């Protein structure tokens, strides 16, 4: 990081020196008397002609005509770039490939972005890929060549219009070319859990009882996937007289216990969805629960058609009182990591 100082320092000194050089100015000599055809100061370059057709342009809805030698110096207006939203997966970015057809190899390009086709409010893609208020000219290779680059920091579910200008040294800067557009997708997260209740009925002590399956669905386009969490109201299977505690263990070898087991994670595509320890046991091995949400299912990538099951298992001890009904209210919530 601290190496920037010397590098910028050298650049600054070079700039200070070149400000008084005219060795790379594009000169245009015209037919006609009088006048200086170019002038420089520390802050500007000016080019003038006398005796030429007046510089200017006329346009209609379908064409623009450029007149004069200055217009003739300009390089080709870039064609519309190629935009992409990752086959409908990008919610905060768009891919960008600049079209350099017909442009000189040393041309540089700036990319203008707007959310309206008339570019009423225009931002420009910075070297970092984020949008800024000033155009940044970079070479074709700096924009990623044929592979392209990524415009980032965009708003979900929004159509963006993008156009490109080109430049090759001074006096060659083109207007922005035709635009193309693409839309970011909306952020997606959907989750469901069913059923909402289950009765284990009357069960005997010293025997592990297993509920029928709960079914989950989970879908998200978040780049870093998401998680499903479980928490419980009572920290176990509770009656008025006793709570069978929630534990992470094989209930078959415990005198009593209550827990949750995740099973059958799957997806249509993406993911994968997996069961997180301690909920990934088999048989009578279950995971504990408490009032603090614990991660039971996870995926590290976007997922389509995610599904999973879970069951609840309980084992009562002979010493557990029979008075009243035992109950636990489990809460399953999901979040995505965008």
């Amino acid at each position, binding site marked *: *990081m*601290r190496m*920037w*100082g010397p590098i*910028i*320092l050298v650049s*600054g000194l070079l700039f*200070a020196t070149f400000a008084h050089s005219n060795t790379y100015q594009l000169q245009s000599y015209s037919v006609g008397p009088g006048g200086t055809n170019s002038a420089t100061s520390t802050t500007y370059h000016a080019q003038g002609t006398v005796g030429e057709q007046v510089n200017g342009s006329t346009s209609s809805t379908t064409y623009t005509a450029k007149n004069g030698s200055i217009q003739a110096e300009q390089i080709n207006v870039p064609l519309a770039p190629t935009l992409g939203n990752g086959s409908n997966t990008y*919610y*905060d970015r768009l891919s960008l490939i600049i079209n350099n057809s017909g442009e000189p190899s040393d041309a540089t390009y700036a990319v203008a972005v707007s959310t309206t086709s008339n570019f009423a409010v225009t931002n420009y893609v910075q070297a*970092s890929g*984020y949008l*800024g208020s000033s155009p940044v000219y970079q070479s074709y290779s700096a924009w990623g060549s044929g592979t392209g680059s990524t415009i980032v*920091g965009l708003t*979900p579910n929004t159509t963006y219009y993008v156009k490109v200008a080109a430049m090759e040294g001074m006096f060659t800067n083109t207007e922005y070319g035709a635009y193309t557009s693409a839309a970011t997708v909306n952020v*997606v*997260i959907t*989750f*469901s*859990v069913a059923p*909402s209740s*289950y009765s*284990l009925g*009357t*069960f*005997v*002590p*010293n025997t592990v*009882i297993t509920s029928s399956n709960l079914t989950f669905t989970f879908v998200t386009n978040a*780049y*870093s996937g998401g*998680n499903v*969490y479980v*928490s419980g109201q009572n920290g176990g*299977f509770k009656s008025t*007289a006793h709570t069978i505690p929630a534990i992470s263990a094989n209930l078959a070898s415990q*005198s009593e216990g209550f827990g949750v087991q995740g099973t059958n994670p799957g997806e249509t595509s993406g993911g994968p969805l997996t069961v997180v320890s301690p909920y990934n046991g088999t048989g009578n091995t279950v995971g504990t629960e408490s009032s*603090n*949400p*614990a*991660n039971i299912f996870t995926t590290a990538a976007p997922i389509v058609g995610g599904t999973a099951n879970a069951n609840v298992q309980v084992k009562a*001890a*002979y*010493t*557990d*009182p*029979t008075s*009243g*009904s*035992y*109950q*636990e*209210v*489990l*809460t399953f*919530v*999901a979040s*995505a*990591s*965008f």
Partner: protein
Amino acid sequence: MKQRRFMPKLRISLILVMIFGLISIYVTGWQPVFAGTLTKSMILEYNMVASQTTNIAISFTSATSGGTNVSVNLANLSTSLTASPTVSGGTCNTSPFTSGTPINGSSVSDGSGIVTFTSSVTFVASTTYCTIITASGGLMTNPAAGTYTATITAGSDSQTQGLDVISSDTYTVNGIIAQTFTMSILNGTDNFSSGTGTLSATSLGSTGGDTITVNTNALSGWLLWAADANAGLKSSTTGHTIGSVSTSSNVNMNSKIGQDAFALGVYSVTAGSATTPYADSGGTTGAGLAQASTTGYNLIATDSAPAASDAVVVKEMADILATDQASNDYNDTITILGAGSF
């Protein structure tokens, strides 16, 4: 001419300013800041159900360094947040988080669905942070079921989130434990030969003992009763019965040596206790049994709490007269009854 003299001075001044500035950049390590996108940013609603209140947990990974201001824009879900929420990081390595640096918030405000606060730590690029935003009674009330967006902004970085509000996120499971009582007798036969051996008129004889195991979830525990068939040890061959001692008092069988006397004692209990007449002190005391067909059963042991494999060891004791006819068929059949007190 004046201009020509001035320009070199200006140039030198500008260069000096530039050099000074660049040296400052080098010394302080400052680097340009660009707005970025938070990654791995998450908002977890502790309650996803429509029209119910919830608090939230957030985590994110910063893209750029230097910021401390945070805003969580929940306006799409609720424009009316509970006043004076608390922003407390706690720990980031416990669920629902997995890792990161906890941040506490100060100068917390909650205007128009946007929680803003100043982070207790200055954000560093590529570092993950977490915190929990709570309010008494819940930070906000969820809107109707559907998918909503919210935005976290930390320093100059931001990211839009998706949140799903659903109709139900709970699963209620209930059940009733059946009333159970099980009792088992280990051997079924308890011989004097496995204890002190052949009965003698000069010493107390006792059996090796038998074990009764009780399991019950009866809230008030269990009870065991005993009765016998012969009111003593009876020989069919000789027609003689070594009669039982009193059923109501604890008898020291050593005091009955040289007499006919038969008793049952509760030798040990893992939980609960023997009743007073049947308490066996060192294998020498107990009480007699009544015939089931006549007087009925006597309570020999009890417990006042649910039992998991409570073990009750009983032994029989006998003294005989020197004149008792010898025989190998002196016997009695003892019946043990048990029940739970639900």
